[in-house]
């Protein structure tokens, strides 16, 4: 027998070990779409919620460069408040939004008093002699401080804020990096810290360090991907511009130095004209990256746009040996969009379809009613299909399987469809071909939807 188990932090009953719930809350917070600060707050809350387990208060230090800086402080002001936080956390069905809202309210309350003083604390991690709180972070070890007032290694300005005799320092580590440190104490209940609290807090520290590390790493990867895409584009554009410029420059110099050879002058001017046209094409292809200057969608007839696209010379040249089938339902309602951009999007799709289809193959373009009183335009080819590995990404920019393509065609089509409130779908089978469906809205549909 297999039983499926849906698990969430709020599934815990009140009589279950609080440690389990604590760890559950922390680990689940890592998957929530909140900021790193909010999630760190959840961790601090979990560590400080309730007098039975964990601690009364938590103070967070984070490193920037080689300096450990006080960042925030969390904890109830009294034993009653400590209990009320635990009540909040153990409310059946509590969500992270509630926990985070609760935390933010607590932080706002504290913003003027203790947190302000904590934010003034800064300890270099690379300069001897190291005092607590910098020492545990620098040594990468949990430190359990008892009899703090008598301990010369504890920084006194720090202790004046904390004002307790016993506390715990848990470094937040990931690999080589020191990310910060959490200070935990029982200032309100004055309950002595127990060995099991230390173990639990150390475990939480490990989890938090890991969380901070993966979050930072993820951010870095996203940024690198963006930069790589930009770099790729810059490289491609450079190539696309330099080649025509080299030809234009070279043939112009020839004209400037030449004797009166009329045939050659004419030839050079022809080449120069063609290269200028190429430069324009590069700019045009890049236009999806500049803001598409979409006018408000207007209502227009699709069939004439399809016909105009199919008659363009560029497509006529490419269609040699390939059959083009066109089927348009009679009496189609007008669609909403910008006819220029819709035509350009279709030209892109047909262009791709012709390139993907071998001689003897077929490209079919169909328009009919589809969706909810809308119009659907399909472009189907009998080409090699889109490999499954990249099918999900084909609408992303700079993804091209073609040697000389910028990889912005489908990205452009997607943007056009988004701009006119429609959508695009793709179906593809390797070796058999690809089918694109463009769903357009009509005025009727808009009216029906209110």
């Amino acid at each position, binding site marked *: 027998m297999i039983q499926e188990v849906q698990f969430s932090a709020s599934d815990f009953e009140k009589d279950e070990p609080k440690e389990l719930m604590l760890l559950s809350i922390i680990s689940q917070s890592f998957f929530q779409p909140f900021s790193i600060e909010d999630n760190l707050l959840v961790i601090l809350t979990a560590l400080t919620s309730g007098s039975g387990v964990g601690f009364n208060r938590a103070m967070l230090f984070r490193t920037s460069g080689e300096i450990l800086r006080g960042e925030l402080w969390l904890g109830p002001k009294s034993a009653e408040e400590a209990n009320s936080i635990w009540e909040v956390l153990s409310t059946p069905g509590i969500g992270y939004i509630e926990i985070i809202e609760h935390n933010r309210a607590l932080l706002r309350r504290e913003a003027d008093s203790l947190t302000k003083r904590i934010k003034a604390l800064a300890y270099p991690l690379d300069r001897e002699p190291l005092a607590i709180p910098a020492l545990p972070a620098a040594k990468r070890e949990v430190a359990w401080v008892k009899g703090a007032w008598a301990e010369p290694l504890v920084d006194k300005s720090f202790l004046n804020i904390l004002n307790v005799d016993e506390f715990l320092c848990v470094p937040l580590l990931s690999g080589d990096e020191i990310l910060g440190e959490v200070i935990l104490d029982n200032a309100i209940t004055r309950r002595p810290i127990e060995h099991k609290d230390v173990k639990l807090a150390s475990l939480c520290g490990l989890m938090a360090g890991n969380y901070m590390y993966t979050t930072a790493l993820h951010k870095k990867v996203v940024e690198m991907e963006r930069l790589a895409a930009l770099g790729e584009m810059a*490289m491609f554009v*450079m*190539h696309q*511009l*330099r*080649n025509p*410029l*080299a*030809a*234009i*420059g*070279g*043939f*112009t*110099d*020839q004209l400037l130095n030449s004797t009166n050879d009329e045939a050659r002058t004419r030839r050079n001017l022809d*080449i120069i004209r*063609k*290269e200028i046209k190429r430069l324009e094409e590069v700019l045009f292809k890049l236009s999806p990256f500049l803001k598409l200057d979409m006018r408000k969608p207007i209502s227009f007839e699709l069939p004439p746009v399809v016909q105009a696209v199919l008659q363009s010379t560029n497509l006529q040249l490419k269609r040699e040996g390939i059959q083009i089938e066109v089927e348009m339902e009679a009496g189609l309602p007008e669609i909403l969009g910008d006819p220029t951009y819709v035509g350009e999007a279709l030209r892109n799709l047909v262009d791709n379809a012709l390139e993907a289809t071998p001689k003897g193959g077929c490209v079919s373009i169909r328009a009919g009613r589809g969706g909810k009183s809308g119009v659907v335009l399909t472009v189907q080819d009998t080409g090699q299909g889109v490999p499954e590995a990249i099918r999900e990404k084909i609408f992303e920019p700079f993804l091209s399987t073609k*040697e*000389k393509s910028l990889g912005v065609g489908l990205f452009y089509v997607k943007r056009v469809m988004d701009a006119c409130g429609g959508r695009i779908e793709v179906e593809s089978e390797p070796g058999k071909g690809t089918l694109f469906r463009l769903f357009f809205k009509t005025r009727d549909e808009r009216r029906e939807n209110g």
Partner: protein
Amino acid sequence: MKKLLIVEDEKALCLLYKEELSREGYDVTTVYDAEQALAKLSQEHFDLIITDIRMPGRDGVELITEIMGLRKDVPIIINTAYQSYREDFMTWAADAYVVKSSSLDELKAKIKELMSR
């Protein structure tokens, strides 16, 4: 007459290089890709090879690697639209690196320099 082999996939540039370098007194052969270049190299001797990097099929870096295996003594000039390949380790194997521009002066100067060595 010194013989030059130019590998360039842009047809307009091939024409330009052929005309301009012939006028400088070289015997110029142009090919559009690495395959054609290797075929030519197996048939004839050339005094200098000028190659683009990004080309359809095998690229210029692969071509240089193969040429080095075949003919270590032939100097190579990389002539490309990309500035950034200069750091690429295989392009160090070339004798000169020229970034394409609207003037042929630099390319002509590099050819002259390598041919007078």
